């Protein structure tokens, strides 16, 4: 085992963790915290890209923490899916860190915004890189505790109300996850995911195994915001500071999706099971209910929150169809979605800075005043709706093509209709916020002049990434394809972790 490589896996967790510790130590100095924050997220992104390159070239990377051999110790495993997620975390983290410089108030910086943000990133990356199911639970909790505190930063009434629902449902989900882990340990006597996969493979029909799989489905379904478990999401995501909203929107639900992808390809491969039928139904309902919820809303960030749910449906559809092409589509969709979604939330914050409201009815005429903001909105918005040649088109196209090949016509129909309704929602925002005249008697007013340079810079960078994924769809597709073949090859993962014993 080459230990230089092991450091690559560690850095994406260690950098944010160290940044959290450092910024806690320097909590008296704003400038230091800001510097640490930008440097650490930049470092995180570089480390993540290095890790991805290494995994792409050399296959799955494994690190045995504390030098305990698997399956006895905790292993960190970076396969392509994990590495891609870590890169996306790096991108979102850096974007948020820079955006925060311009938007987070002094009081909140003093209250511990930066340490919490880094702790959240550490938790998210830990979840992506661990190869141990109990360790996954621990990282989930690290991420949750940080997100709880970030959610109520500001202390407004809406934040408290949203946070209570968020905290309750997420804790219920955690308890279910923990119960499932406990039962699984009782069944298999191991917690290492590779070892679990190997031990459970001959017993997939055992009713107890099915029950545990179902518990995982519900627990991760809540985290991912899948139908009918998503109600905490639209109640809370529009309440915190925009930078926080954007970080949550980009990453948190995707950790749930990642966990579903991991557990249902490795430990409980879907095959022709009841769970697969359930997931198919959930995917369709999630898409439809999310987009219909969005259609009824007139608050910028609430529309976007409901669209997160609807988009989760596409990713679940990719997983549930469980064909190679569908998994490719799911992975592609995740890559596209994280960047677009974070960006849309950041743009809603930019509009708030320009006009002082999130209410569609109070806003108007942004395009006339600031044409470039309109263009910047259109890129991710149309990408979300799936217009070619932007990134969303390819994501939707692959998933739907997989649906056609698997002959799930009803699901394909739902996906297509939802695409149209997404376009309707985005056009609604465009018409209300950017196109129409500023309504008379509007209470909206400019919040603060200047200081939008950093905000615009971040938005431009993320928008160009969206365009890039669309233009360079072929290499991204190749990456997703390699990821999917890794996911559909559990023995490869098992051998990488436990050593080739055949």
């Amino acid at each position, binding site marked *: 085992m080459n230990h230089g490589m092991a450091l690559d896996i560690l850095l994406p967790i260690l950098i944010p963790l*160290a940044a959290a510790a450092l910024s806690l*130590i320097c909590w008296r100095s704003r400038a230091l915290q800001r510097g640490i924050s930008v440097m650490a997220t930049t470092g995180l992104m570089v480390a993540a890209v290095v890790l991805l390159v290494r995994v792409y070239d050399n296959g799955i990377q494994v690190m045995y923490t*504390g*030098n305990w051999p698997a399956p006895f110790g905790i292993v960190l495993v970076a396969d392509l899916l994990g590495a891609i997620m870590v890169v996306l975390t790096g991108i979102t983290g850096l974007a948020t860190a820079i955006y925060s410089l311009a938007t987070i108030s002094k009081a909140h910086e003093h209250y511990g915004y930066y340490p919490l943000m880094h702790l959240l990133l550490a938790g998210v990356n830990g979840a992506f890189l661990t190869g141990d199911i109990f360790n996954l639970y621990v990282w989930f909790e690290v991420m949750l505790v940080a997100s709880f505190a970030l959610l109520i930063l500001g202390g407004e009434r809406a934040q408290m109300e949203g946070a209570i629902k968020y905290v309750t449902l997420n804790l219920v989900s955690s308890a279910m996850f923990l119960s499932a882990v406990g039962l699984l340990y009782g069944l298999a006597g191991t917690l290492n995911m590779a070892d679990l996969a190997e031990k459970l493979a001959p017993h997939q029909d055992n009713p107890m195994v099915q029950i545990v799989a179902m518990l995982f489905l519900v627990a991760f379904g809540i985290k991912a915001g899948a139908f009918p478990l998503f109600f905490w999401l639209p109640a809370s995501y529009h309440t915190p500071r925009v930078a926080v909203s954007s970080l949550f929107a980009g990453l948190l639900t995707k950790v749930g999706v990642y966990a579903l992808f991991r557990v249902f390809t490795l430990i409980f491969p879907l095959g022709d099971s009841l769970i697969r039928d359930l997931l198919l139904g959930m995917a369709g309902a999630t898409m439809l209910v999310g987009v219909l919820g969005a259609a009824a809303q007139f608050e910028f960030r609430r529309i976007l929150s409901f669209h997160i749910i609807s988009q989760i449906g596409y990713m679940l559809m990719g997983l549930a169809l469980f064909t190679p092409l569908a998994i490719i589509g799911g992975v592609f969709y995740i890559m596209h979605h994280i960047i677009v979604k974070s960006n849309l939330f950041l743009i809603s914050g930019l509009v708030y800075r320009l006009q002082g409201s999130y209410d569609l009815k109070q806003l108007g005429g942004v395009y006339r005043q600031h044409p470039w903001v309109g263009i910047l909105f259109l890129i991710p918005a149309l990408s979300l709706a799936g217009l070619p040649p932007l990134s969303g088109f390819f994501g939707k196209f692959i998933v739907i093509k997989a649906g056609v090949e698997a002959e799930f016509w009803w699901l394909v129909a739902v996906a297509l209709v939802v695409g149209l309704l997404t376009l309707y929602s985005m056009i609604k925002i465009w018409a209300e916020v950017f196109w129409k005249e500023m309504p008379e008697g509007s209470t909206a007013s400019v919040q603060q002049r200047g200081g939008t340079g950093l905000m615009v810079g971040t938005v431009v960078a993320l928008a160009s990434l969206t365009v890039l994924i669309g233009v360079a769809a072929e290499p991204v597709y190749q990456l997703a394809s390699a990821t999917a073949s890794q996911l559909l090859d559990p023995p490869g993962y098992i051998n990488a972790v436990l050593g080739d014993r055949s």
Partner: protein
Amino acid sequence: MNNPRQHQSLILRVTGYFLLPLLILFSLFMLLRGHNEPGGGFIGGLVAAAAIVLYMIFSDVKAARRLVAVDPRDLLGWGLAIAILSGLPGLFLGQPFMTSQWMELDVPMFGMLKVGTPLLFDIGVYLVVIGTVLTILLTLAEAED
């Protein structure tokens, strides 16, 4: 409450003053013996935090803050930093993160003393636990006043 001291029990105050140093000592004992017997950084940190909270109950929040001398947030930061640092020595020796390193010291009168990075980790945890509990409880207590 006009004068918080009015409501306080004499018994609590007197025993409290005696208990405080004992509890702190006990917490250190718990921290140090954790590797061979039940104990450790977490439980030791809880005992220490409980001792300070007891002090807060029979005096007041300001006095408790003075007693701790440093801001609980500093404890949190340093504790986290120490815990991370304890994982690093292994890396420099070409072993994976968190590999424990031990060395034996010959202490006169006591015999061999085995110290290692897990103790460092536990000290980190100890500080983080005190920091977390105190940050939360002192903030809550201040909000009550």
